[in-house]
């Protein structure tokens, strides 16, 4: 839930928990981005105007990290709905304030039902994995066995082979009560790693304005997934080793030792040889993390899974966009012939791009001429927000459209947008300054 009104989020989060769902609250765009980097969500409740930007910026981050999450905008006015829908696409929902429990319950029920429908279409293993090849069957057996133990697992495999999905599969198969908490060790600044892993007390360092609960504590009773664990600097690894050995952590700036009980799954795209020869991991920590190592096969080694995977991705995009494209034999043959150096991730992107390129009146999915090259960069985002507009332009458009809808009344527009009048004036001044600068430079 992304909203800067702490009174509102506090009560709403408690309601959501009483309805038997778990919830994370972010008060700013920056907080929300951090959450999206570290976790995946089934549903995102999103305020439109936030202190450091707009809900559209969160939407952009969401499309980058977790395309399948359902989005519901929180707004006080029906009139804002149509404007937001025109830029965010038809698939979003709206929660109109004042919100009652029944509205929240109904929204969550719809999202859960939709997720169940989706999983019924494709045969998945442990709720997340697709594939029936011999190598995947062997993997499923390993997952079942390791899930029944408490062993830490190191998941190795090339980029794009689905290491995080395997971590989720182990978590799902374990039946544990706690949360699945994921972090990318390569993305955390070196000086913040200890604070991220173990949390910090208020005043522990400049900028520590409040106590922060770390990843180990958040994963209590559940699973902590450390992706790209080999990117953690060697000199910081002893802190992690100590937590793994003792099952206890101390928050940065704190003195109390806290017992933590979570399984640690980690992943790396470094090969076994690299781990040994280039010393990405200290030997002692390797043996703690890799009690049970699992190596994922590259897609090239399980080509028989390509039709199943392609179909599951196409089903997903068909559901999202309300289309009914199908794969014909020619397309399947081309998919099976390609090498897929980027593995399953590259296949997914190829299907996604084909889905966008296919004419609306076509029945059969049209594959691009070159399957590989468009995916050399993984930063392309095919969203409704990407029709040539920047996020700033979308936000500006929303504000201007709202002003138009209120016949230029700023107070009414501010109220419809759920922002203070001062914030609206600030944004309008900012647009004016940008326009003046452009005129001067033009």
């Amino acid at each position, binding site marked *: 839930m992304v909203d800067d*009104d702490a*009174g*509102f989020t*506090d*009560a*709403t989060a*408690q*309601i959501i928990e*009483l*309805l038997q769902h778990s919830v994370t609250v972010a008060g700013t765009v920056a907080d929300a981005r951090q959450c999206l980097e570290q976790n995946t969500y089934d549903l995102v409740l999103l305020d439109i105007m936030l202190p450091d930007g707009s809900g559209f910026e969160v939407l952009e981050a969401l499309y980058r990290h977790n395309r399948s999450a359902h989005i519901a905008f929180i707004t*006080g006015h029906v009139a804002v709905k149509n404007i937001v829908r025109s830029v965010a696409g038809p698939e979003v929902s709206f929660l109109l*304030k*004042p*919100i*009652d*429990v029944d509205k929240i319950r109904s929204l969550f029920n719809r999202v859960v039902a939709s997720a169940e429908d989706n999983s019924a279409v494709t045969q998945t293993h442990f709720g997340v994995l697709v594939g029936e090849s011999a190598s995947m069957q062997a993997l499923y057996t390993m997952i079942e066995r390791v899930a029944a133990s408490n062993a830490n697992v190191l998941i190795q495999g090339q980029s794009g082979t689905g290491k995080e999905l395997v971590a989720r599969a182990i978590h799902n198969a374990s039946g544990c009560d706690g949360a699945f908490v994921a972090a990318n060790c390569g993305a955390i600044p070196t000086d913040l790693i200890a604070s991220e892993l173990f949390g910090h007390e208020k005043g522990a360092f400049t900028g520590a304005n409040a106590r922060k609960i770390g990843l180990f504590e958040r994963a209590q009773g559940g699973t902590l997934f450390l992706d790209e664990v080999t990117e953690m600097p060697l000199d910081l690894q002893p802190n992690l080793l100590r937590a793994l050995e003792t099952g206890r952590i101390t928050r940065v700036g704190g003195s109390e030792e806290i017992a933590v009980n979570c399984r640690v799954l980690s992943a790396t795209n470094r090969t076994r040889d690299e781990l040994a020869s280039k010393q990405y991991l200290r030997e002692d920590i390797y043996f703690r993390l890799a009690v049970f190592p699992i190596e994922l096969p590259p897609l090239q080694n399980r080509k028989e899974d390509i039709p199943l995977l392609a179909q599951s991705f196409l089903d997903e995009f068909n559901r999202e966009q309300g289309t009914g494209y199908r794969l014909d034999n020619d397309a399947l043959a081309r998919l099976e012939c390609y090498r897929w150096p980027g593995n399953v991730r590259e296949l997914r992107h190829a299907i996604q791009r084909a889905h966008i390129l296919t004419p609306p009146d076509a029945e059969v999915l049209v594959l691009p001429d070159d399957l590989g090259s468009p995916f050399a960069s993984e930063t392309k985002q095919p969203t409704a927000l990407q029709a040539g507009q920047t996020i700033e332009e979308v936000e500006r458009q929303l504000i201007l459209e709202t002003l138009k809808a209120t016949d230029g009344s*700023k*107070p*009414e527009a*501010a*109220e419809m947008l*759920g*922002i*203070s*009048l*001062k914030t609206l*004036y600030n944004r309008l001044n900012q647009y004016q300054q940008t326009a003046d600068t452009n005129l001067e430079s033009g």
Partner: protein
Amino acid sequence: MSDHDKTSLDRHTLRNMLNNITMNAELIKLQVQQDVPTPQLMASVEKILQECKHCAHYLNQNQG
């Protein structure tokens, strides 16, 4: 900012307070249905009372 604009600024703030009161009332409804312990119920009631006081204070401050 015109006088009319200032009146509307009050409406935004008041709407937020009203929303918080509504959400806490909805929370209490659910807490009662699920037999949550009394201290948790009282915490929600306390939040509504606090928000009502803020609301009254805000109206007094911005009178006329």
